[in-house]
C-alpha cells in the first residue's frame, strides 16, 4: 500500500489481502501421561464445585447486596436462602434446606434474614428470583 504516493487522504483504497493459512499443530502425547489420563483429570476436577464462601452457626443474620433487577424487587420476586452443612453444596442437592425471602413492599426485596441454624457450621448461598417467564432464577451466590 505504501507504494502509493498521495498528498491527501481523500482516496479510499481497497485491495484483496491474501492471508497466510496458519495451521497450528497440537501434541497430545509426551510428558509421561496419555490423553485419556488427561481427560480423566479434567473430569475429576470439574466434578468438584468451589467451596461456599459464607458460613455460620447458631443464630445468624445473613445479608447480601440488593439485586438491581426490577423483577426481583417486585411482587413475585425475592431471594431464596439455601443452606447445608456441606461446604461444596449445590442448591439442587437433596439435603439442602431453603428459606424463601420474598419481596414484600418498597423499592427492594429484603436483603437480610435472621436464621437460627442450630448446631454446627452451616454454609449459605443466596439465589435471586422473579416471576418473569413463569419463574426465573439467578445463579447462586459463591
Amino acid at each position, binding site marked *: *500500500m505504501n*507504494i*502509493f*504516493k*498521495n*498528498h*491527501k487522504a*481523500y*482516496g*479510499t*483504497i*481497497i*485491495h*484483496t489481502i491474501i*492471508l497466510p493459512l*496458519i495451521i497450528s499443530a497440537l501434541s497430545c502425547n509426551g510428558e509421561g501421561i496419555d490423553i485419556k489420563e488427561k481427560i480423566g483429570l479434567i473430569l475429576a476436577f470439574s466434578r468438584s464445585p468451589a467451596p461456599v*464462601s*459464607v*458460613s*455460620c*452457626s*447458631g*443464630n*445468624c*443474620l*445473613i*445479608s*447480601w*447486596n440488593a*439485586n*438491581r*433487577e*426490577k*423483577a*426481583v424487587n417486585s411482587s413475585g420476586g425475592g*431471594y*431464596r436462602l439455601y443452606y447445608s452443612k456441606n461446604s461444596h453444596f449445590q442448591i439442587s442437592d*437433596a439435603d439442602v434446606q*431453603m428459606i*424463601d425471602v420474598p419481596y414484600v413492599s418498597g423499592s427492594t426485596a429484603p436483603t437480610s434474614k*435472621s436464621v437460627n441454624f442450630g448446631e454446627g457450621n452451616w454454609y*449459605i*448461598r*443466596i*439465589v*435471586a*428470583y*422473579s416471576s*418473569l*417467564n*413463569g*419463574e*426465573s*432464577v*439467578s*445463579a*447462586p*451466590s*459463591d
Partner: protein
Amino acid sequence: MKIYMRKYPVIILIFISLLIFLLAVSIGASPDLLKKKFRPVTGHVKDEIIVKFKKNTPYSARGDRISRMGIHKSDISRDAVLIKLSEGENIEEAVKEYKNDPSIEYAQPNYIYHAYEIIPNDTNFSSLWGLKNTHQTISEGTYPYNNPGTVGMDMDAVLAWDQITDCSSVIVAVVDSGINYNHVDLDTNMWDGTSCKDASGNALGSCTHGYNYVSNDNNPMDLYGHGTHVAGTIGAVGDNGAGTSGVCWSVKLMAVRVLDELGSGTTSGVISGINFAVQNGAKVINMSFGGSSYDQAFYDAVSNARSYGVVVAAAAGNDGLNNDSIPAYPCNFDLDNIICVAALDQKYQRATFSNYGPTTVDVGAPGANIMSEWAGTPYIISDDFKTGTSLDPAWIRVGNLEWNYNIHSGFDCLTNPVNFDWAGYKYKNSIDAGVYKSFTLSGSEDAVTLTFASKFELEPYFDYFRIFYSTSAEMMPGNLLDYWFGLTPGDYFYLFQYNMPICVGSTTCTVGFELDTDSSYTYRGVAITYFNIDTLTLNNTSYKIVSGTSMATPHVAGLAAMLFAYNPEYTYQDVVNSIKYGGEDISALAGITVTGKAVNAWRSLYYINKPTGVTATKL
C-alpha cells in the same frame, strides 16, 4: 475507518413502495388479530407439581407428604408448595395420588404460560425476521443464503414487548453517518438536543438532535444512509402503522455524524463523537464501524465512556475473519463495556461475511437481510465508457488524444495509452491528455459521490494522473479531486471514492481524468473501470434491506436501551451481563464467540445477575 455494511458488486434496487402496498393490503385484512395474539398454554414443567394443603394440615405433616414423591422446591403461597418430583415419578400419577390425600386441597401440574404477544402494526413488520422469524422470505434481500430462515430464530422481541416497549428514558447515541431525523418513522424518537454540550462539556446552545463532526456544525443530517438504517433498528417508532419497528418502540436517538457521504471518518471525529455522546447523557453508543489499527485515542474515549457507565455495541467486521488473529477495533479493545457483535443469518448461522473470535467477539445478532429506514432515495449513474466497441463520444478528449475505450481483464475500461494492456505498452512522454464527460442530475440531490476502480503505473513524482470535477459542461476549469503517481501493487484494480459536494444542487456534474507526463521515462499507464456516480436525495419515507455486522450491532444497542429502561438501577456491567449471558445458545456460535450465544431480548429481560456481597453475622 470502515463501516461494516455488506456491499455487493451488483446493486439491487428495492421496490419498496410495492412492498409497502402489498403488506398494507395483507395486514389490513385482520388488524385486530395481528395486534394482539394470545399464545395458549403449551404444556407443563415435566417434573414439577403444585400442591395446596388444607389450612388445618400441620406443617410437621406436610414435609412427610412432600417427600413421598419429591422435594420441596419453593413456597407458592402460605399453603401451596412447588414440589420437584423424584426421578421416575409420573406427573399424572403424582397429581392423582395427592388429590386422594384428605389433607390436600388440590394438586396440579406446574403449567407453562406464555406472554401475550404484542405484534406492532408497522406495515413492514413482517419483514423484520430478526425480531420475529416466521420463515418469511425477504424477497429483496441481497444476502443469498438461508432465505427464508427458520421459525423462532429471532430475538424474541415480541415476548419482551409484553414487558416493555418504551425505552424513552434512555439516550442511544448513533455514532455513524448521522440520522435523517425527519424520517417519518424516526422523528418522534429523536433526542431533543436543546441545550446540548460539546465534546468537552461546554454549553453549545441548541443542537439538531445531535452533532456533525464531519462538517463541525450542529446539523447531523445523514447523507449516506447507513446511520439512519442503524437508528431504525434500534428505535424506529413502533406500532405507528408505518414502516418498521425498532427493538425499542420509543427511545431517544442521538445523531452523532462522524462518517461522511462515503461512509468514511477519522479518529478525531470519532473521538469527538463519543465524547459528545457521553457529555450529553447517552447510556448506549452504537458503533457500526471499525478499523484494523490499534488507536490509543479511540481506546481512551471508549474507556472514558465506560467511566460514565456507557455500554458500547460494536460491529465485529465483515471480512469473514477471526478477530482473535486479525484484530478489529473497537471490538478488540480490552474494555468490559464493549459488546462485540457478529452477524447471523435467517437460520441463525454465522453470516458468511461476519467476523468471529473465540475470545474477542461476544455474541451474534440478526445481521443478514435487515430492513430498516434509509436516509433517502439512492440513485446510481453507471458508465462503461463505450458505444458499441468504441469510446462513447460523450467522453470528450482534450489535449493529446491518448485516452480510449479498451477491454482489460474482461472489464470495460477507459485507458491511457489507447492500447493499454498492463504489460508492454507505454504511455507517451510530454503529453497532457484529458478526457471528461458531463452527467445530468436533477438538481435536487443532497449528496453526489464518485466511485471508480483503477490500476496505474506512472513515473513517480514526474508523471501525474489527476481527477477533476465541475458543474460546467467542461472539464476545465475544474476542481481537483485528487492526483496520483507511482504504482498500484499487483495486477488488481483498486477502488477510489470521492465526495463531490459542488455537484449538489447542480443539474450538471462533469468528471474528468488527466494524464500529464514529462519528457523522461514511460510506464504502463492508467486503466479506469466500474465508474459510478452515486447520488442520494433525502426523503422521509425510504427503507432498505442491507446486510452486515453493522446491522447486527444496533439490535444489541436497542436491547441495551431496553434493559436500562426496564431496570433503572442497572449498571453497564449488569446490562452487558444480561445481554451476553442471557442470550440463547446457538450451535453455530459455539467455539467461535466468547459466549456461543445469540442475543435474545426476552431472555435478557428475565436474566438475573448472581447475588453478591453475602455475609453472615453471628447474633
